[in-house]
């Protein structure tokens, strides 16, 4: 009945002509090689993690900086203490950044609402988010074409983890925190995807992100 070749041809024809332009949110150049498409694919989620040395939030903010600078709105949920100065340092446009203090009871509601109108939501869910809430939000993001950048537990499409971190500039009673060198390892979903490691300054001495 169905001519598979013709179906394929048809599928080819209805596919958007410039998917890379419309479906990808740009990221800052030093982060591009950590993502399989070189950017944040709309409708997907990225988990940012770190060891006890921290760095997950900086990584999340640096990821959000690209889309923000390109005109996207970004929102932060579940981190009432996010530092906007650091965000601005990475390149986020503070005129398009909202911080939502939802409290642990309403983080999922807030995230769900934000997905409807904001391109990128940085969310820190509570330690044990309900799997149903995670699934619902992921589906909603997929449906709306938003990107979820999650700081915390999440079964994300993509995972970036700060493996190593060392601060430069501070001695015993002298100097000051100047820059942090980190190793970020990127893993996609599925065993077929080989992990990618990159050395970054996160932040640099001027608060930006750069390849090390």
């Amino acid at each position: 009945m169905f001519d598979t070749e013709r179906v394929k041809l048809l599928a080819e024809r209805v596919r958007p002509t410039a998917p890379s332009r419309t479906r990808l949110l740009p990221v800052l150049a030093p982060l591009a090689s950590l993502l399989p498409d070189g950017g944040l694919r709309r409708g997907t989620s990225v988990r940012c993690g770190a060891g006890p040395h921290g760095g997950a939030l900086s990584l999340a903010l640096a990821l959000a900086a690209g889309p923000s600078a390109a005109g996207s709105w970004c929102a932060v949920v579940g981190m009432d203490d996010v530092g906007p100065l650091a965000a601005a340092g990475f390149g986020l446009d503070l005129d398009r950044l909202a911080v939502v203090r939802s409290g642990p009871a309403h983080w999922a509601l807030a995230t769900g609402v934000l997905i409807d109108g904001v391109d990128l939501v940085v969310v820190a869910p509570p330690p044990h988010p309900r799997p149903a809430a995670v699934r619902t939000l992921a589906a909603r993001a997929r449906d709306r074409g938003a990107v979820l950048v999650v700081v915390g537990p999440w079964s994300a499409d993509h995972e970036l983890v700060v493996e190593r971190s060392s601060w430069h500039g501070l001695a015993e009673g002298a100097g000051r925190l100047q820059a942090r060198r980190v190793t970020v390892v990127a893993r996609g979903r599925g065993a077929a995807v080989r992990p990618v490691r990159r050395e970054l300054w996160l932040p640099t001495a001027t608060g930006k992100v750069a390849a090390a």
Partner: protein
Amino acid sequence: MTALPRLLLVECPALTVPAVEPGAGGDEGGRRLRLFARVVDALAEVCPWIDPVRPGVCTLPIKGPTRYFGSEGAVLARVAEVVTTVMAAGPALAGEGTAVGAGDGAPPVPPVPPVPPVRLGVADGLFAATLAARAGTVVAVGETERFLAPWPVDVLGDPDLADVLVRLGLTTLGRFAALPAPDVLARFGAAGARCHRVARGLDGELPGWRVPGTSRHLLAALGRDLALTEHQPGFWGGASAADERAAEVLTDLQRRLGPEAVVVPVLEGGRGPADRCRLVPWRPAGTSAEDDRGLHGRAQARGGRASEPPWPGRLPPPAPARVAAGGTGERAGAAEVADGDGAPVAVTARGLLTGRPARLSVGGGPWMPVTGWSAPWPVEERWWSRGRRRAARLQVLAGGSEGRAYLLVVERGRWRVEAAYD
């Protein structure tokens, strides 16, 4: 939870239809949705914070417009006039006896003539405002709880709950509200507790009362096709479409969680990270002059970034990714700094440490070895006033060779974590 906002609820009974698909052109539902979209569009002139709840129903916070129009009565009159005018100019709605929504099981809508074009009500929160509109009343300020009390419990829209309550003899919202909250939670679960909060006037939102995406559908009905614009910023005027979409959801969240729950950064002069950046409740662009202090501040911050005064004693970059929500206030997390012998480390009046920091504990947590620390930055702010404070900041690296970095502040011998370099 903050007090519920005083809302004017506008209901156009002829336009309340079950959730309709936008752009399902030609059908009665689509006609109603388009007409309601025009009503909302026109009402935005009275109040830009207008909030479509579901097709045929919208609310607006009445405080602002009251200041502008002089009295709540004047606002009501203006709103009634706007709605009536738009509806009269609109296309004839199905009223000639044609069955409406036939085929998809939708209940037939009564013909237009006996239905008033608009019902208005004023009370605190969406729930009470809905009942106020049903009764056609303006509930006086502070009287919402008393207004709710005599209503039968089935207005909560939960038939199972209402059934049990009535059998228990709790026939009215007032009687239900009088039950102790823990008992309600134990007996009726989270959904029952939510209804209880609504009955007590503490919460204005019940699941199912709001049709998600109504604003979006209305915009689509007005012919502003968001789907086209959102992926092509700058081409179809997409930038402003993105702002519009964001404004919509941020307004929505503020209504649900309170104005303080959605904040935006404003850069200011100052020394510490919390002083240099304040978070203020978000306000949509173009609201009244009084309301957009935040926006003004942001514009100022943007314009003034280059010419920022060099604050002496200011913390050098990079800025910390986490800043204690209380800033320099009392809410910031407590910390302890000890030297190698376990004795607390302090800062002398001359700005020197009394010992070599060896261990750090944050918020009563376990001791972490300190591997690096800065010289203290003296903070002596507002030296000209009585509210002056002497404090010192210290950057500390704790937790081993790959340590986590903190910004501590010590004041009157007490250490706090002001920020963390996460």
